[in-house]
């Protein structure tokens, strides 16, 4: 009988009810909210759901699945992680060693059609203009007291590219990873809410009704050369951006080559899905109460929204410049797609354009700036890492 009572006492002493810190319950509550948003509202569920569940797992006291202290030092003791670490510590090595974000970029490349960008290369300018949101937010974050590496990691949220944000933050400000990942993916889910008011505010009805000429046909040869040219050019000029851009372009090359269907299917499906699960759950695990529940997180959420809004506005404003220079042949609405968030931002351009004219089809025109934004944000991340890494 005494053994039974001791066992129950032991279980009780190890349970949440005796070990809990009040802030852990707040984090568990936030995890529940994110799970609700992912399932009920479908806010980026593929990533937000694993992130939210990782957040739940890491904040249940006594679970010992993730130990942030193992990764606090600049030089990680990998032996210690393997000996002492929990399940999520082991998986987190994939984030820390930048394996997961880069594999996701490989998958993205294998799913992306750069045809609209090749057909209309000027779209690159819209993708570049939208990256201004990153650099302007960098100033804002610095003014609020963040260090340069932290400000860079926060500003990259404006690139609207999850893997890029995770890649840069892991290297520059890993302690902010949870907050930045949650902010980045939440805002990407909110693109259809955030962008339309800004687009409508900055354009006239006449501009929104501009119908653009049909894009030219892009040959297979061009699609094959594109990833090779981009890899070589970006690699030569900004080698720090090569991991992201290189993997993106490799994924695209295997897709366009047409000779490795098995690899393409794996990159698009199995590999992507496995990595998404591991990336999501481990990024969520970094959102412990100590890391997440502070003023910095609130500022990151505010700055992230600012980065998104500024990026959208800069894209649309540059679209207006192109509207004038092209003799009213470019619809400025496609500029907002330059913030990446593929393909959601392009869909928003299409939707807002069709509200002004039901017969206007901007989707393929917006896909050009949209995929240019992916390259642009990867380049911006490379520049930031070069400066502060």
């Amino acid at each position: 009988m005494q053994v039974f009572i001791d066992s129950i006492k032991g279980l009780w002493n190890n349970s949440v009810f005796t070990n809990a810190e009040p802030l852990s319950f707040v984090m568990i509550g936030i995890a529940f909210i994110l799970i609700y948003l992912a399932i009920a509202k479908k806010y980026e569920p593929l990533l937000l759901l694993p992130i939210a569940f990782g957040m739940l797992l890491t904040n249940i006291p006594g679970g010992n699945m993730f130990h942030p202290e193992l990764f606090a030092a600049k030089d990680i003791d990998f032996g210690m992680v393997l000996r002492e670490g929990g399940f999520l510590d082991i998986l987190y090595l994939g984030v820390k060693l930048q394996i997961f974000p880069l594999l996701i970029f490989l998958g993205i490349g294998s799913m992306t059609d750069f045809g609209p960008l090749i057909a209309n290369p000027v779209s690159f300018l819209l993708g570049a203009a939208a990256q201004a949101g990153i650099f302007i937010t960098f100033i804002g974050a610095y003014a609020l007291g963040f260090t340069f590496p932290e400000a860079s990691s926060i500003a990259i949220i404006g690139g609207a590219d999850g893997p890029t944000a995770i890649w840069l933050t892991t290297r520059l400000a890993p302690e902010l990873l949870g907050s930045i990942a949650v902010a980045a993916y939440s805002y990407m889910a909110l693109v259809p809410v955030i962008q339309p008011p800004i687009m409508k505010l900055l354009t006239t009805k006449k501009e929104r009704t501009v119908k653009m000429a049909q894009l030219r046909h892009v040959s297979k040869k061009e699609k094959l050369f594109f990833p090779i040219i981009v890899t070589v050019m970006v690699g030569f000029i900004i080698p720090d951006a090569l991991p992201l851009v290189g993997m993106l372009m490799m994924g695209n090359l295997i897709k366009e080559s047409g000779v490795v269907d098995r690899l393409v299917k794996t990159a698009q499906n199995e590999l992507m899905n496995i990595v998404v699960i591991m990336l999501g759950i481990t990024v969520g695990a970094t959102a412990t109460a100590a890391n997440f529940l502070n003023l910095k997180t609130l500022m990151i959420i505010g700055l992230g929204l600012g980065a998104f809004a500024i990026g959208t506005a800069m894209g649309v404003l540059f679209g207006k410049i192109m509207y004038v220079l092209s003799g009213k042949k470019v619809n400025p609405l496609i500029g907002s797609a330059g913030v990446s968030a593929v393909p959601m931002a392009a869909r928003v351009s299409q939707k807002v354009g069709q509200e002004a004219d039901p017969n206007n089809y901007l989707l393929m025109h917006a896909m050009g700036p949209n995929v240019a934004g992916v390259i642009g944000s990867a380049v911006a991340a490379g520049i930031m890492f070069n400066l502060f890494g």
Partner: protein
Amino acid sequence: MDWNMALSTVATGIAVVFIILILLIGMLFLMSKLATIGYKPTIMPVNKSFTLQKPVYTKPAVKPEPVPENIDVPEPDDLEIIAVITAAVSAFSAANGKQARIVGIKKRDKQTRRSAWGGAGVSESMSGMKGRVW
């Protein structure tokens, strides 16, 4: 606070992003020029002996059946398009040893709905994009 560094980061960042992407634009233009060297669009030969016959309308001997009010009656121009599509379906099905016929025609409101071709184009463009994972 090192504002010089902060501002120079912004200037450098925006400038470098633009420079790289402008260089890529140049490379793409060059690539498109090179890709079209030696390319000649295929032109179908024209049969000069062919002359378009004026359609002759002959009054039907049999009185047509009354058309119910709830059926959309196509415009004369639409009838030609329907005839062409019917011929294409017939030719396609005949090649497979089958017979097919058009049993109904429903007109769609052009103001609120996209055309079948537009719908097919959008559907093809969006396929593979569902379920964003990054």
